[in-house]
């Protein structure tokens, strides 16, 4: 339950595994502890030009997120008097709906000493209101035939229910109640904090690559709050109090800091009316000041290493790069598109450049090699290369080989067939995405939190087609010097059960025994 979206990548438990009883009990992080591949790579679902007509008909640049344009993409946006944004995307292909409430507050809004509080609060939101006692929220949703969960990210926190669309009003009433009236006794907090610590142990403390990623972020950012783990440092969790969670809730959970997203077999007007009924009376709040906490420039490589029980070594390289902030002609936005294409050319399909150059042939150096680019966020963006070396290959050699792939593009550009391929993938993937109400709602919520138009997916079609080899070459040349690199090495150490190092540490950190 209540998974932390580490870097936005979520995998729900396989639906068929558990007797076809679907459950979102837990979000499971997979080996690559990162990064939803926003445009191209998510499970390598790709595509071709079905909607080529639509692409050509669409003006590609300088689109403003005006309501008429949104409507053309089936998205209806309105705002209640108290500032709550309401997004509805009707789709009658099945008699279900997903109801999501997103709050624009995540781990990046935390301050030192309080890491993990956004995520703890997300857990506590299931612990009751004066009219719905602890445990009842989930029971009521279950009784409606629904499935539910929540997630916390650096940029946002989200709550959702999937339901037969006839039950929309019932879940909206429940969600609005806890959004406005969340309250619980201290004992509930004490218990749930232990659950969160177990979550941290599972996701991070016993998962060396996750831990390395945590250290990489803490190394990469000095001032920016992206340096902190979403789940929080264990010592911060140990000292967290019920009041901390309540204060965070009262400060940030306001209608003018939230968006309601509904996708499914619903009537737009009816959803808007319901939103007004259940959320409309909530008072606006003056939100805490968000300090910019901008990252000072980096002038030189930063390195971190982690020794942990593992068989395979592992390297993560991350560079500071621009993120996408909107559909205008500003250079950083064009560069963000070029970086998206760069990542896909490196690693967007089986046998793309990283695979070929690093994992194949007599001179191969890696077991696997990948690239990630997040595209957009409330904070600054990074571009990541990661790899697992072949036995006997040192991490510094692997690092050089990874960098050489970027340098090659910086020197030679990319081929037209590669460009065509990765652009085609984006177009087809846009069709596949529409198979799931849940994914559509999730994308729109994230776009909202990051200040992008809700129909960003549709709007991107044109501009992405226009990215040239020269532009890809230019970003490869511009952003990948060692001066803005942070590198993290995982150094395997033997798995010695006798040391029981992690257990002892876990106990000590939990304040149990010695």
């Amino acid at each position, binding site marked *: 339950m209540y998974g932390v979206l580490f870097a936005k990548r979520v995998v729900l438990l396989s639906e068929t595994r558990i007797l076809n009883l679907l459950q979102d009990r837990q979000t499971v992080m997979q080996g690559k502890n990162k990064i939803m591949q926003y445009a191209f790579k998510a499970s390598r679902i790709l595509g071709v030009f079905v909607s080529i007509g639509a692409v050509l008909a669409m003006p590609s640049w300088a689109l403003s997120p005006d309501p008429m344009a949104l409507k053309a993409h089936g998205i209806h946006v309105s705002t209640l008097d108290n500032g709550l944004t309401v997004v509805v995307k009707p789709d009658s292909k099945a008699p279900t709906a997903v109801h999501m409430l997103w709050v624009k507050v995540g781990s990046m809004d935390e301050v030192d000493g309080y890491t993990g509080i956004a995520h703890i609060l997300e857990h506590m939101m299931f612990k009751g209101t004066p009219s719905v006692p602890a445990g009842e929220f989930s029971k009521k949703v279950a009784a409606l*035939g*629904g*499935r539910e969960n929540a997630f916390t990210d650096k940029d946002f926190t989200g709550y959702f229910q999937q339901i*037969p669309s006839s039950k929309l009003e019932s879940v909206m009433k429940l969600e609005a109640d806890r959004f406005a009236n969340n309250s619980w006794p201290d004992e509930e907090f004490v218990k749930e904090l232990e659950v969160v610590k177990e979550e941290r142990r599972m996701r991070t403390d016993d998962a060396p690559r996750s831990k390395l990623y945590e250290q990489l972020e803490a190394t990469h950012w000095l001032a920016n709050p992206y340096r902190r783990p979403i789940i929080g440092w264990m010592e911060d969790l140990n000292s967290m109090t019920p009041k901390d969670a309540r204060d965070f809730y009262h400060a940030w959970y306001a209608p003018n800091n939230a968006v309601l997203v509904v996708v499914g077999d619903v009537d737009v007007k009816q959803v808007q009316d319901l939103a007004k009924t259940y959320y409309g009376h909530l008072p606006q709040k003056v939100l805490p000041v968000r300090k910019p906490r901008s990252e000072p420039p980096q002038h030189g490589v930063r390195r971190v290493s982690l020794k942990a029980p593992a*068989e395979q070594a592992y390297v993560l390289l991350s560079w500071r790069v621009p993120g996408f902030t909107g559909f205008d002609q500003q250079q950083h936005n064009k560069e963000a598109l070029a970086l998206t294409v760069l990542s896909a050319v490196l690693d967007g399909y089986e046998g793309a450049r990283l695979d070929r150059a690093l994992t194949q042939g007599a001179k191969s150096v890696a077991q696997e090699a990948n690239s990630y680019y997040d595209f957009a966020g409330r904070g600054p963006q990074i571009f990541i290369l990661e790899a697992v070396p072949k036995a006997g290959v040192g991490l510094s050699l692997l690092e050089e080989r990874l960098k050489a792939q970027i340098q090659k593009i910086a020197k030679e550009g990319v081929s037209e067939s590669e460009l065509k*391929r990765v652009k085609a993938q984006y177009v*087809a993937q846009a069709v596949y995405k529409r198979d799931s109400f849940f994914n559509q709602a999730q994308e729109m919520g994230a776009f909202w939190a990051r200040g992008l138009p809700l129909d960003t997916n549709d709007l991107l079609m044109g501009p992405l087609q226009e990215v040239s080899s020269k532009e890809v070459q230019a970003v490869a040349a511009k952003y990948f010097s060692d001066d803005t690199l942070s590198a993290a090495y995982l150094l395997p150490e033997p798995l010695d059960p006798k040391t029981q190092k992690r257990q002892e540490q876990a106990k000590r950190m939990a304040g149990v025994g010695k």
Partner: protein
Amino acid sequence: MNAQQNTGLNFFKFSIPMGFLALAFFAQEAWSALPIEREKLQGGLEVYWVNVQSLPMVDIQIDFDAGARRDPVNKAGLASVVSLMLNKGVTSQGKNPALDENALGQAWADLGAVFTASAGDDRMSICIRSLSQASVLNEAMALAYRQIAAPAFSASIWSREKTRLLSDLKESLTQPAPVAARAFKQAVMQSHPYGRSMSEDSIQRIDARDLKAFHSSFLSACGAKISLVGALNREQVLKIANGLAQQLKPSPRCADSSALEASHGPAHNDTLSASGFEAVKPLEKAQRIHIAFNSAQSHVLIGQPGIERADARYFPLTVGNYILGGGGFVSRLTEQVREKRGLSYSVYSYFTPALQAGPFTIGLQTRGDQTEQAIKVVQDVLQEFVSEGPTQEELQAAKDNLIGGFALRIDSNKKLLDNVANMAWYHLPLDYLQTWSAQVQKVSVKDIHQAFKGLIDPHKLATVVVGVKP
């Protein structure tokens, strides 16, 4: 009703019933329009499909009776390796030149289509997702046929992949979850093939000839199923299915198709089933396996052999397990282990019904020094559930969720395909989805109580702990 048939998922478009009774009724009336169709082709390949026109895309799953249970005893992992290597090159065929792994990857990417292959215990599954546009889909299928029928199984590529696989395997053994899963499987399934896991030795023994032998024995039309969901009419479906059937060579196993049919039916209890697999034996006594491990948490798995998919107790156990440990945040296990005591982030139970009886599993992870406490809580919850069964109130809550939420099981093409492929694989009746809610509705407290009592013996559980030394 007729009007609902012509446009695929429009069958969904009805006024929404209030409450599960109405839904059960509705299931009979309106959902009978759920247009799942079936056809058996010459050579044994069976086709199941649903025409869904709401999006210009197609999802296809092809299942072969070529899962891990077919691995030779000393070559565990072979089925997985074969599925992996299906993606690593094809031989030349007629005027089509050979394609290496990179050419295949590029071809799929250029089409915007996706090909994946994987092996479970029983079946090897090949999944294809493509746009439905004929020019794209035809090429995608032509490519898929070649990968299924004429994989290159290059010795040098396998040698490289073997190194990679061995390294990944060793890496996984440094993590508590996979170590626990392997030990648990073996403890519960004992000598049955479901209990085996690949090992360094078993992978080392596999060479390219083994891949070819496995492929020619088991990737055949007999016993195979192809399931399709998407914008395809009958004619298009049959063209795709026949195209596949033509590519599949006759296998020696096809000669005795009755044996194959039998292998899909219930296995005999005390002898080899007709498919040649031993029956899954119940555990004779409680067993505790502890593997000392340097991890912050202990990973705990507790269980016994469960049921095969054809078991008559499938629905009582499905509904019962929802109450025990399947139902999200409202199960007994979650209530006692997580909500009341804060012992674990995740605690769950599930059955693994398959052609034969897969395990019944309860799992959790907890800080090392809390391990015994957590195990005790699980044992108490299970003991009470088995000896007393659920309450009427719990049963009602389970039905409300399962029946009320039925539409959520099939509200995307991908989910619908999962269900259709299961129906195909397990020979479920064509009205399986229409009658699903009624089957759940029929389950009584007594049914659940008897099913659990008859199956689960809390005094003969296998318990695996990977973590702190007790």
